[in-house]
């Protein structure tokens, strides 16, 4: 059984998370695409705490001892999934930053080389 206190805590934390994300979007400090996960995550937790029968049903289905554990499982699962995708995202970001820096450096070198050649050409003429 989900205790009333547990359900209230879940709801408060979920709404707090969602409100924080929306505030960040309002301040133009967060891209909407990145906030969607947290909004859906909060939504799921609110639904689970408003309708305890869902967790009881899920716990029975998976053969878990208590419905509280079912909710923990859901939270765990979603956070691990998010963590996994974030690892991939960070890796790709790092790679792209590296690529960008190298492209800028190579372009600058090319520019210098060209200027150098022009100067050499001019000094030979004079």
């Amino acid at each position, binding site marked *: 059984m989900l205790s009333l206190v547990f359900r209230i805590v879940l709801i408060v934390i979920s709404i707090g998370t969602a409100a924080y994300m929306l505030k960040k979007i309002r301040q133009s400090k967060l891209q909407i695409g990145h906030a969607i996960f947290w909004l*859906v995550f909060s939504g799921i937790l609110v639904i689970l705490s408003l309708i305890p029968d869902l967790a009881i049903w899920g716990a029975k289905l998976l053969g878990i001892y208590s419905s509280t554990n079912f909710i923990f499982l859901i939270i765990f699962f979603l956070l691990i999934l998010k963590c996994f995708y974030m690892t991939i995202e960070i890796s790709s970001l790092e790679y792209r930053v590296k690529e960008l820096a190298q492209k800028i450096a190579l372009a600058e070198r090319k520019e210098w080389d060209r200027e150098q050649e022009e100067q050499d050409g001019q000094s030979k003429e004079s």
Partner: protein
Amino acid sequence: MKLLIVIPAYNEEENIERVVEELQSKYRQYDYLIVNDGSRDRTSEICHRNHYHILDLPINLGLTGAFQTGMKYAYENGYDCVLQFDADGQHLPKYISMMLEKMEEGYDIVIGSRFVDEKKNKSFRMLGSFLISKAIRMTTGRKIADPTSGMRMFNRDMIREFANNINYEPEPDTISFLVKQGAEVGEVQVHMEERIAGESYLNFSRSMKYMMRVLVSILVVQNFRKRNR
């Protein structure tokens, strides 16, 4: 009005030549800019060889970043309006003059819409469009018949906003946000071509993700946003 056609292109080697040649031969009066979004195929090479007006992004930014680059270019170079135009040949340039006329009536955004006079067919693909239309109707009270059309024209104010702000994606949720904030959006009936070559970006799982993103954004997020003019 000075118009810039912004053509974001990612791996469009099979289409870009056909699309740009048509613009260059029959629609010389309009300026255009291809934003090559870090394509890994010969898109950039083809454009440079033909001396097309192109800007190369060194890495892939996605549609939002590529389109915003075009908006920044238009803003810096004093264009009055920008047309978002697909590189795959779906959009037909013969409708541009009609959209410009509509624009001159004082709209902020004009959508090249497939469903002003014609009805949506009841396919799975159109279900998404239908749901997004409903969501926009619910939150703004306005009817946008074809919110997912990628053929959109923006005026100077919109160019400035899109060029300089975060969370201005060229997607239906931004349209919904702007409508809610008082922007005037008009629609012009157009016909679109089926994609001739290359693969569509939207497969099933991407479509689901897209729908989830756009719907949560329209129904929840956009109600809490503040507009930075």
